[in-house]
Each structure stands twice: as structure tokens, then as C-alpha cells.
């Protein structure tokens, strides 16, 4: 650890990564503005209600990013269990009346004075750090079931269950996916993973079949036009919005979906509004920016000075890239509807804060890569 820091500090952090992240976050501000003003005016008599808050978190997030860039990532190893404990407390607090805030039947928020935080977003960070720490430590022993697989499954399982209880299936799914992918990269036997995933898949099918609400959600995903008036309404609106955009889009500000037609237009479905106004070219730009982030992240995973750095870089990249792909899939109707935000772009302070912090950590890893020029 000391060797790495002393001997081969790269001269600069990854500016391309930084530029990509800041561009995405700035674009996100514009998109929140575009998609939320009508709703904010109607609901809060202040068209800038969401923009102001998002702007505040953006500034805090930038600070967090620079902090993350400055703090040696090896320090996180020491705090890994504290992070897990804090996340656990946060995830429990959301259920405590008076502290937890319930919106539309989902207890996902913790009130801290005027601010509300979403512990699940920070839980993702904590899990990624924990996994990276654990994988890096166990290395060769990963192939053993009792050492390499079970403990991670148990620890992650607790958090996934807590998040699922809120309920926040989107976050639970992302957490699960990241855990398994990191286990896979860390060297766990593929058999265990396949068994666990198919077992989880079977349970998911059973749950879906037993719960009519989720069942109808799957149905609506399969045929949004047939169920377009009720369960498939949101997806139908999203598809209409995306399709209306065409190649060039309707132009900034001309979205119709945001006139209360599309629910969650400024959060989970913000990309629909964006693609309606900016067209395929706009969507392509967003995808390209994410691709840049993911590419730099994967490169970082390969070149990090040590195993912890590699796993950490991979986990954080997944946190951003995987979630973005899933969100885009949901919005365009190739994955079933889940409450899952689009990193950097969707309205949501905790998510933005967590993602910018993740970028900051990635930047710090990049600073410690020995080879110049990456």
C-alpha cells in the first residue's frame, strides 16, 4: 500500500472520465429542468422546485467527487464494516415512523432536517467497497463455497432483502446483479452463481405469479398496447414519447409526455422525455457519454495498482453502467418496469451524490495507476 503510493503515482487523474461525468451531470440538470417544471408548478407552485434541489445536490456532489478524488481509496478498506453498519442503520431507519418518509407506499427515504436521503443509494457504494475488499483479500480462496461464496451471499442478501422490503425492487435487483457479477469476476465457481441465480429466478417467478400486481406488471411489459389504459399506461406513454422524438426530436421544451401523461417523467422515465425532445441523436449522445464512463472504468479495472483497486473500479463502473443499461431497457420496453433511476440524469439527490462520489473514487484510483497516459 505504501509502496504503491510512494513509488508510482501517476501524474494526473483521468480527465476524460471526469469530463464525461461532469457533462452527464450537467445534462442531467437540464433534463430535470425540462421534465419537471410543469409538474412542479402544478404541485408546488414553483416551476424550479426540483431544479433548485437537484442543483444543490449537484454542488454537494461535486464537492464529494473532489473529496473522493483526493482521499486515497485504500483508506476505505479500514472503514468497510462501518460503511456496512451505517447502511444497515439507514435501511432500518426508513421504516421508523417520524424519521422515514413514505412516498406512494414505498419507504425509501430518511429525513434529515430539510433534506431527505435515500440510504439504498449509499448501500450500493458500501456493498461495492465491501465486495472489492473481500474479493481482493480472499483471491485464491474464492473458489471455495464456504469462503468465496456463502459469506458474500449472506451479507449482500441481508441488504438486498432490506432494500426489497422498502420496497425498492429496482435497487435490490441492481445490488444483486452487482454482487453476482463481482463474485464472478472474483473467481467464484460459475456453478454456484448459476445455481443461485436460477434459484433466485425461480423464487422471483413464484413471487410474480403469486402477486397479481407484479404479474400484471410483467403482462403489461409483454404487451403495453393491450394494457395501455391501466398497468401498461406508463410504458405506453414512454414508448409514445420516445417514438414521437424520431431522429431529431420535437425540440427542447416541446415534450407532451411531461404534461402529466407520463408518470415519473423527471425521475425514472426522464430519458423518455429527453428522447422525445432531442430525438435519437440526443439518446445516442447520452449513450456515448455512458460508454465513455464505462470504458474508462473497465480500463481502470484492468490497470489499477492492486486487486482492491481493480475490483473497486469494476464495481463502481457497474454501479453506473449496469444501472444505466437496465434503466434504458426499462424505458424502451425491453425489460419489465422497475423503479430504477438513470444515473446522473434522473432527479434524485442521493443518487447523484452517490454517483459523483463513485466517480471521485474512480478518479483517485486512476491517479494511482503507474503507467502514465492510461
Amino acid at each position, binding site marked *: 500500500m505504501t*509502496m504503491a503510493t510512494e513509488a508510482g503515482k501517476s501524474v494526473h487523474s483521468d480527465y476524460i472520465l471526469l469530463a464525461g461525468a461532469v457533462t452527464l451531470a450537467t445534462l442531467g440538470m437540464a433534463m430535470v429542468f425540462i421534465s419537471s417544471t410543469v409538474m412542479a408548478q402544478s404541485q408546488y407552485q414553483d416551476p424550479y422546485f426540483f431544479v433548485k434541489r437537484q442543483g444543490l445536490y449537484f454542488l454537494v456532489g461535486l464537492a464529494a467527487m473532489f473529496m473522493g478524488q483526493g482521499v486515497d481509496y485504500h483508506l476505505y478498506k479500514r472503514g468497510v464494516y462501518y460503511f456496512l453498519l451505517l447502511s444497515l442503520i439507514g435501511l432500518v431507519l426508513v421504516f421508523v415512523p417520524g424519521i422515514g418518509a413514505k412516498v406512494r407506499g414505498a419507504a425509501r427515504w430518511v429525513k434529515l432536517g430539510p433534506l431527505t436521503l435515500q440510504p439504498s443509494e449509499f448501500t450500493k457504494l458500501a456493498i461495492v467497497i465491501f465486495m472489492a475488499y473481500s474479493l481482493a483479500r480472499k483471491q485464491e480462496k474464492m473458489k471455495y463455497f464456504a469462503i468465496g461464496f456463502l459469506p458474500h451471499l449472506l451479507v449482500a442478501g441481508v441488504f438486498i432483502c432490506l432494500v426489497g422490503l422498502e420496497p425498492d425492487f429496482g435497487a435490490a435487483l441492481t445490488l444483486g446483479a452487482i454482487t453476482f457479477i463481482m463474485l464472478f469476476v472474483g473467481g467464484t465457481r460459475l456453478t454456484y452463481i448459476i445455481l443461485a441465480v436460477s434459484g433466485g429466478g425461480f423464487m422471483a417467478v413464484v413471487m410474480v405469479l403469486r402477486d397479481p400486481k407484479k404479474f400484471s406488471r410483467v403482462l403489461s411489459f409483454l404487451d403495453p398496447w393491450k394494457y395501455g389504459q391501466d398497468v401498461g399506461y406508463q410504458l405506453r406513454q414512454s414508448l409514445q414519447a420516445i417514438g414521437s422524438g424520431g*431522429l431529431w426530436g420535437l425540440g427542447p421544451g416541446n415534450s407532451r409526455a411531461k*404534461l*402529466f401523461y407520463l408518470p415519473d417523467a423527471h425521475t425514472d422515465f426522464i430519458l423518455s422525455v429527453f428522447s422525445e425532445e432531442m430525438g435519437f441523436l440526443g439518446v445516442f449522445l447520452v*449513450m456515448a457519454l455512458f460508454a465513455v464512463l464505462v470504458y474508462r472504468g*473497465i480500463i481502470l479495472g484492468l490497470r489499477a495498482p492492486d486487486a482492491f483497486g481493480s475490483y473497486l473500479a469494476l464495481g463502481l463502473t457497474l454501479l453506473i453502467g449496469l444501472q444505466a*443499461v437496465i434503466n434504458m431497457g426499462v424505458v424502451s420496453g425491453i425489460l419489465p418496469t422497475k423503479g430504477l433511476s438513470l444515473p446522473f440524469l434522473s432527479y434524485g439527490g442521493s443518487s447523484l451524490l452517490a454517483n459523483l462520489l463513485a466517480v471521485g473514487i474512480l478518479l483517485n484510483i486512476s491517479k494511482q495507476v503507474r503507467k502514465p497516459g492510461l
Partner: protein
Amino acid sequence: MSVKISKWARVRVVLVGLGLLVGALVVCGRFLQLQLVQGEELRERAEQEVWKSFPVQPVRGTILDCKGMELAVSTGVQSVVAHPPHITNPGYLSRELAPILGMEAEELMKTLTRARPFVYVQRHLTPEKEEAFRAWQARQEERRRKKLAGGKRSDEEWIYLLPEGRRLYPQQSLAGVVLGFCNIDEHGIEGLEHQFDTYLYGRGKKVVKLVDAQRRIVINEEKAWDPEVMGHNLVLSLDHTIQYIAEKELERGVSRWQAAGGMVLVGRPRTGEILAMAQYPFIDPNHYQEYREDQRRNRIITDAMEPGSTFKVFIAAAALDAHVVKPTDRFHCENGVYHLGGKEVIHDCHPYGVLTVQQIIQKSSNIGAAKIAGKLGGARLDYYLRAFGFGSPTGILFPGESAGFLKNFQKVRSPLDRATCAFGQGVSVTPLQLWMALSAIGNRGILMEPRLVKEVVDANGRKVKEYPPRVKRRVLSEATASQMLAIMEMVTREGGTARGMAPPGFTAAGKTGTAQKLVGRAYSHNKFNSLFMGLTPAQGPVLAILVIIDEPKGAVYGGVVAAPIFREIAAQTLRVLGYYPENPNPPVLANLSALPAQVGRQAEEGEVKEKKGDAGCKPEGAGNRGSLLQGESLQVEAAVGTAEHKTGGQWSMIKGEMKVMPDLRGLTIREALDVLHRAGLRCHFEGSGRAVAQEPVPGQPLGRGGYCAVRFEAQR
């Protein structure tokens, strides 16, 4: 700890990256498919959802008089409407709104819970209520803001104001019965409003508006002034000033004689144009519900009545035209009692001995008229009366016209029927028919079509449809018509039944009538209609007026009751139309030799004429005559020296050959030259300014190629 990850782990990292790449490519492909392949289809689906078409209320056209005065207009007014299926708490709304709308809460509750998608809560709010409602809406908005109710549309938004049109008659009862009225949906249900509803109503259209998911309008493409939805305007021949005169005098006459009602019809005989049509009691179409059905009806057109003695005119005209009698033919009037074989007896009010045809009309002898009818014979009687337009609708563009009733005198054998018909019993005519027939006499024997509507113009002022004066047929020869005018003039002269009833300064040709009203199947002995119909001036009339007073008390004779009303209306109307009495002194037939003594007075007269010009009352008679000529291709002779020629317009309009020396006084050199040139006269002018003297004197017969000298003087 600082060991790097293994080779296989690196491979797996790359695999993860590739996995993400595959995911990204799939998503990218999906967006390509949605936006470029299915884009059009999806956009159409979306547009169907967000662009909703809304109806735009048509705006009803205006009704104008011939001077452009608005008689019926539409204004915007607000109505409260609601969508009951969306209202979750009607009880609360009812309690809130009941005092604002001045309704009972229960009643309001009933409206708001009706099983309809759309209801009118209250239509055509008064401005006070509209203001109160808007204030209530503002209060609700404030309350909602505090509650932060969010994007959902609340109850209050499902009850709102809807703009509608409301018909207003700014002149109130003026010509009310002619205009008719509209129901609350602005559809004409009576009068001209009904007749021309398709023109007036306008065309509603649909306008697409961008709405949000709560059906609130975001983009509104409705225009504040849209000629596309506006109905056409109706221009009437009525003149509001003359209509006012007619109504005022009618009302005065009715109250003077404590009558049950009355009617007046004023118009131009030459064109069949109606200038005023009044019926008492008046109705105010703004409050049409307050009147009985028979008061709302325009009885001048819809109801037939017995014409009484006025009918004698048409019998006499027929007999003259058929050359059965001459004006000077004498009839023995049996000293007031005429046994018509059997039991039937005809009486005269006053017993007369031998009367000429002219005197029979002048004194209104029933027996004389009956004898003329007898001499005329059934076939010709029938022919002429139908030619005058009796027994068939006049074709006026007005709902519910009655045809009146005329027996088939060709087939009727009974001499009594012919005889009673001669003084207007056993026939029924509408006042309009009577007026049209009267006008035919005043129009050189030509029956016109009635003209109440001049034209229909659209909102941009373009002509949509025109109703020019139209000739129906020739009824009498010109000579007969002229003879009849002379005979009828005697009615207003000394010894006539309407002595002194010509408007001051003018002559008038008329006929009185006193018709017993039919009560059941018998004639009433105390209920009469007093009639007077008249043309003025007697030669070349410009006005035809019919006055009917229903059940006058105290006096019943047309000459006493109706004729004074005629005189008042005629006198005032002539002035409105720009006709002024001739100099009360006999016309000065100035000789050039006698000039010095005359100059002063002549100049004065010139000044009077100048004033007339200044007042801007350009007589319209000439123009109308022009259009008439096209219809009938008559040669108008310059009726020189008559009232018509002096008052009746521009010289340049007079065509054809002069027969007598025209009156040049008051003309400029250019005008005089023009007139004399037409007359084919050589001339000698002296001085400048306006003509003050001439040789030969006006009215002197001329041959073509005569010689004339005129003296002009500058005006003082």
C-alpha cells in the same frame, strides 16, 4: 494485499465490459427501432392523445336596418357548466355555489348529480354572478395551492364558465315583431330570425387544442375574432327612423281611440320596399317570453282580415282598366237602400242619389261599388283581384305568411257575393297584400314583390345574396293607374271621406275603410277595424302607407281614426326621406320681362333648395326608379311640374323625351344645359349662378327643337 488481479480475473473484467457493451448495443438498437422505424406510428398515437378537438361556438350574424343601425346583435355571455361524473363531492359544491348562483342548494345538487357527461348549471349569467363565480374560482385556487393537491384535477375544475352567444335587441321593441327572436341556443324561432336562421346562425367549427393528461388546455388555437364561425349579416329595407315614427304615431293613435291594437305599413310603392312595419301592442324580443303567442306573431303578414271599403278602389280600378266604366260614368245609388233581389239589402251610411265613379270612391258608396262590380262581371272581377295579388301569398321572405281568402268569382253565381266583395266583405286579405295592391296603383299599375330584406353580407362585408326589387306583373295600364290616383286624391279633398288628411304641403291619394269585425259567423255591430291606405304625393307617389286600427272606441270611421295617423306618419316620413313640401304659394311662372320684381323671392327659393342639398338628404327615388326600369323596360316620361319631378331626384336620371317645358329654377348652368339638351331644346343663357327665371314657363307643352331662354343669378 497490493498484488494485482490474476490473468483470468482480467479476462473476466473484459467479459463484464463486453457484456455491458452488448447491453448498450441492444438498447441502442431498440431506440433506433422505436424512434426511426416506428417513430411515425408512435407519434400519431401520441398526437391523438394530446391534441383534442374542441367545438367553437358560432357567432350569430347581426341584423341591420338600411342605414346600418344594429337591430339585433349577439354578445358574448358566460354560462356555468359542469361534468357530473367527475365531481366527487357534489354536496360541498352545491352548498358553496348556491348563494353565488342564486339557486337552491338542493336544486344545484340535483343538477350536479345528474347521470350525464355534461350539464348546464346556469345559462347566461348576469355580469354580477359571473364576477362572483370568478371570485369563487380564485378562492378555490388559493385553497388548493395551500393544500398542495397536486396534478390531479379537483372537483372545482369540473365546474367552469363556458362562453356562449346571447341575442340582444338594442332597439328594444323597435320592429320587434318583424325581427322575431331566438331561443337560448341562439336559433331563430320567430320572424326574420327564423326565416334567415341558416344565414344568420354561423358555422361552428372544431379547433384542436393541446391538452394535458388532466384535460386542461395548454395551447389554444381559438381566435378572438374569427370570421369563419361568424354568421352572415342581414340588411333590411326597414329604416329605424321611419319605423320609430310609425310606431310612435301608431301608439298615439291606439291610445287616442283606446283601441285593442293596430298596424302600420310604410314603404316605397315603386320598389315594394318596406320602410316600416309596426304592430301594436309592440313586443320586445329581449323578453319574448312575456308575450302571448298572438302578440309575437307578425299579423300584418300572417293574419287575414276583411279589407272593408278600401277594397272599392280595386273594384273601380278593375272596371276602369277593363273599360267597363269611365270615371265620369254615373250610377244611381238608390238613396242608401239597394234591394238586390230577394231579402238581400245593401245599405250606404249616407243616402246618395246619382254619383259618378269618382264620387263613389270619394264618398265610399257601397251601393255604387256593388253596381260597378256587377257591371264588371265575375270573370273579370276574379281576374283583376287575383292580378292584384289577393288570394295568394305575396312571397315575402317571412315565416307563416297567409294567403288570405278570395272566392272563385268566376264560378260564384250569387250576385250578392260579387256585390259584398265590392265593399270588402266576404273576402279576406292580409294587410301586406292590401299594401302591395295599393302600391301597384302607385307604381303605374305594376305589382312588385315585397322587399323586406335587401341583402345578406358575410362577416367580412362581402355580399352573399342580394334581393333586388322585383316586378311581379302588370295589373293595370298606366293610364288606369294614373286615373285611379286622381280619383283617390279626391278622397282627401273637400267632400271626401278623409278630407284634409293629406300631409301638409303634399297631396295624397287614399281610401278609407271601416270593416265590421267578424265575431263568430256574424258581423259585430260595435267592433270595427278602421283602415286608411294612402299614396303620397298623389301624382308620382313615393310613399305607400297602410294604417289599421283595431276596435277603436268613440269613433270607427277610417277617415276619422286611421287617416290622421296616416297624415302624421306621411308628413314626417317624407322629410326623413328628403322630400319637402313645395312652396305653399302657387308656382311662379316667371317671365323674363317680369323678372326684376321676382328676383328676390326666386333667390329665396333657390336657397331653400340649397339647404336641402346641405342636409344630405339625397332623395333615393331616382335610383330606385332606375332599377325598376330595368325590370319592366318602361319609358319614363318626365312628369314635369309635378311634385314627383321637383322633389324626386336628380335631373340626370330623367330619360326619354320631354313633352312639356321643365322647371329649371334652382339648377346650375350645367344641369340646366343637360336637361334642355335631353329635351332637344335650343337655349339662350344669361348671367351665372342658379336659374331664377325662364321662358317659356314650366309646364308649357313643347315640340322638339323649341327655343328657351334662362336667366341665372349668383346666390346671395
